[in-house]
């Protein structure tokens, strides 16, 4: 027992928690550290505030919840509207007031009460084979259900949060029954069991396994500039980018975003960080490095994005509604056996 105790004491010594100094900000992040590292370094350089990060794709909300008022987390950073919505539901975030944020971020990409702010946007688009799909042959998400695509569509798991958001937006648009019919019809058109990430779907199009793939828009930028893996440039070159539903509601959008936690010990620094991330400089970095769309009006998209994607119409649906429908969408995926 003594040994156990001394071992515990020893480990506690090694494990001193981050000191609560004034000039730092603590981030619980659903986004990979390597993606946000350049931005945080720029933030520290500009403000002198040190940014500490814990990255995990799950469990962070539960951590904030149970750590309660002593939680060291200041900022919750997510790659999707889902966790932001869940955090609001659980009462883990606090509303903040910032004129700067309200100016920088359009109203549709932030919550009305200031609990969360979108930082970048991306569209879920259709990647269509240049060789096997004629221009104008597919123009909407609804078209994916057309039997002529039988055995020609690839996608990642229906349970992935990006697909759940898209399905949620279909439910919001058409109602549950019709959306379920649509999903079942899309399922019938799949070329293979849903698997892999978005990039893997485009690769499958290049390789002739399927003709249409669903994927987030920024993956195109990541592939077409991938000098380290030139084969990805070939994948990207084999497809046309189709922004669906341009004649009606517009292409489905999602955001990466942030919110300040309810008991943030460094609230001011937290607001400063989010403000920085919405600034011209940070928005440009997001656009250039990760090929996401800046939410800030007036910040140009990366040249590359403009070259391949141009202007397009965005779905104006309330993101909170989409997030709310994720659970319905997840059950729908089970009901039609989408992933089986």
């Amino acid at each position, binding site marked *: 027992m003594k040994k156990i105790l001394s071992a515990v004491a020893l480990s*506690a010594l090694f494990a001193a*928690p981050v000191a609560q100094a004034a000039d730092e900000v603590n981030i619980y992040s659903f986004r990979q550290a390597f993606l946000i590292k350049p931005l945080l370094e720029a933030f520290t350089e500009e403000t002198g505030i040190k940014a500490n990060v814990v990255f995990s794709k799950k469990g962070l909300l539960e951590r904030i919840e149970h*750590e309660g008022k002593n939680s060291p987390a200041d900022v919750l950073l997510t790659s999707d509207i889902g966790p932001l919505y869940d955090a609001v539901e659980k009462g883990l975030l606090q509303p903040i007031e910032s004129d700067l944020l309200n100016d920088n971020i359009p109203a549709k990409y932030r919550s009305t009460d200031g609990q969360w702010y979108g930082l970048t946007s991306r569209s879920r688009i259709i990647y269509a084979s240049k060789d096997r799909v004629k221009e104008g042959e597919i123009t909407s998400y609804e078209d994916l259900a057309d039997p002529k695509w039988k055995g020609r569509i690839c996608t990642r798991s229906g*349970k992935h949060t990006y697909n759940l958001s898209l399905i949620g937006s279909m439910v919001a648009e058409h109602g549950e029954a019709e959306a379920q019919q649509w999903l079942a019809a899309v399922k019938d058109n799949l070329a293979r069991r849903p698997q892999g*990430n978005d990039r893997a779907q485009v690769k499958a199009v290049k390789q002739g396994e399927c003709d249409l793939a669903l994927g987030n828009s920024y993956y195109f930028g990541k592939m077409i500039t991938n000098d380290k893996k030139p084969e990805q440039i070939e994948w990207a070159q084999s497809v046309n980018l189709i922004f669906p539903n341009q004649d009606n509601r517009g292409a489905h959008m999602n955001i990466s975003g942030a919110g300040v936690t309810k008991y943030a010990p460094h609230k001011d620094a937290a607001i400063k960080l989010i403000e920085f991330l919405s600034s011209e400089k940070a928005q440009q970095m997001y656009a250039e490095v990760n090929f996401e769309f800046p939410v800030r009006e007036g910040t140009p998209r990366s040249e590359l994005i403009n070259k391949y994607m141009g202007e397009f119409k965005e779905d104006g649906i309330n993101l909170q509604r989409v997030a709310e429908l994720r659970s319905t969408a997840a*059950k729908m995926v089970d009901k039609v*056996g989408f992933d*089986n």
Partner: protein
Amino acid sequence: MNARLNAEINTNISNPTGLWRWFGSTWLVALLVALPVLSVFYLALFPKENIWSHLAETVLPVYVITTLELMIGVGALAVATGVVTAWLVTMCRFPGKKYFEWALMLPFAVPAYVIAYVYTDLLEYAGPVQTALREFFGWQTARDYWFPEIRSLAGAILMLAFVLYPYVYLLVRASFLEQSNSLRDASRLLGCSPLQSFLRISLPIARPAVAVGLALVSMETINDFGTVDFFAVKSMSAGIYDTWLNMGNLGGSAQIASLMMFFVVTLILLERLARARQKQFNSSDRFKAIDTYKLTGWKAAFAWTVCALPILLGFLIPVFILGGYAIQHLDQLEQEDFLTYAGNSFFLSATAALITILIALLLAYSKRLYRYKSLTAAANFASLGYAMPGAVLAIGVIIPLAAFDNVVDDFMRSTFDISTGLLLSGTTFAIIFAYSVRFLAVSTGAVESSLNKITPTMDMASRSLGLNPLQTLMRVHLPLIKGGIVSAGLVVFVDCMKELPATLILRPFNYDTLATFVYQFASDEMLEECSLAALLIVAVGIIPVILLTRTITSTREES
């Protein structure tokens, strides 16, 4: 017989205070270790909505059948590989045997999620194998030929079996090494062929070892998420995460996890029940060299191939491919602080290994001292954490630690007006605690089985010579079970090196281990960027793996 002897030792020599000291500390530690599992049970009481009607109507049959297929497939393959190779390197002599003895453990150092990424890169359509086939046969597209899909149930079974069979190999080999020559000699004299003798004598004696190995393999399999998720295999753990993360129903997913746990535990108990009446102590001739069969010609070639194959598939190919990528990313050595990551991995794993060994010793020894059913129950209870998915267990760790921190903080605030904040949450203590809870089953099993092999007459002799129970443990038992303890510690160490979900969720700010570094790239299917770190995990894991086989072999010289 044994129970009566023990009862006599203790009624005659122990005093009630001693009893309560052992009894109390055992239960206290068992409860502490069981806290995260209890927290998950608690969560299961409050689902957001009833998940079962939805599951039963839709995907539950798929989850259940897939999980069973996965468990049976991995179990059968791991047992077959582990037992056959263990028997060959222990009972036979053939060229290369000395190397195979330790090399067969090497795949243990490779994390399952890493091997899954490697083989996908290798065997998918764009991979070198299919590309070469296409060039050779002149095929144009995927529609021109058939090739097995690596991202499938069969693929997941192979990946998991490749890296999990060493559990069986390790335990069964130790058991073969301890078997007496005389039994085997007798069977041969009575006309058994070497194969018959293996099936009728060696294998039945090794059954407890096979069972323990199989239990470990099954629990690792049922809790795997990385591989099944990557291969889009719909096992129960997919259902757990879906219910939690997509349906926002942590309580519902805790119910699924708890149910799965009971299923595994029932299986283990049934097996134990089936051999409850068997009892073996070390044979008196175990220090004599084993008589081995000398293999020559095609038999030797066959044995060589059977032993080489698992090493090739589970270790050489993945390491070779990772090495190829790593060479292109050597610049990471300057950019990334691998020394710190490796140091963190090492510190966490070594501390957790030490702690699990100490706890396992306490549980197993007090069970030996006082054969109360409740002490056995305490030991079993404390081992439950192994049967729970890592991420769910991590939530179970967060709850009691945060509650403790907040209670202390409230008390200190109200009494002394000082805020102590979070003392344990978000520190490496939380990770080490999670590791200990998760892997205690591994060390308890090993320590207990080594202790059980020491005949109770040893205890009686020592106690009648005036040593108290603790002195007996330190001076008599520990030296005798040193090998078992070291190997249990090393297994836990390697397991901790590979552990991912709990480390991710519980870690402090700006804290990376090799595994978390690998994950942030691998989760985005960027294997090349993390190949160097993945190789480091394997490299750090190899050292204990080789030590492990040394300690086991050194228990008995062979002829």
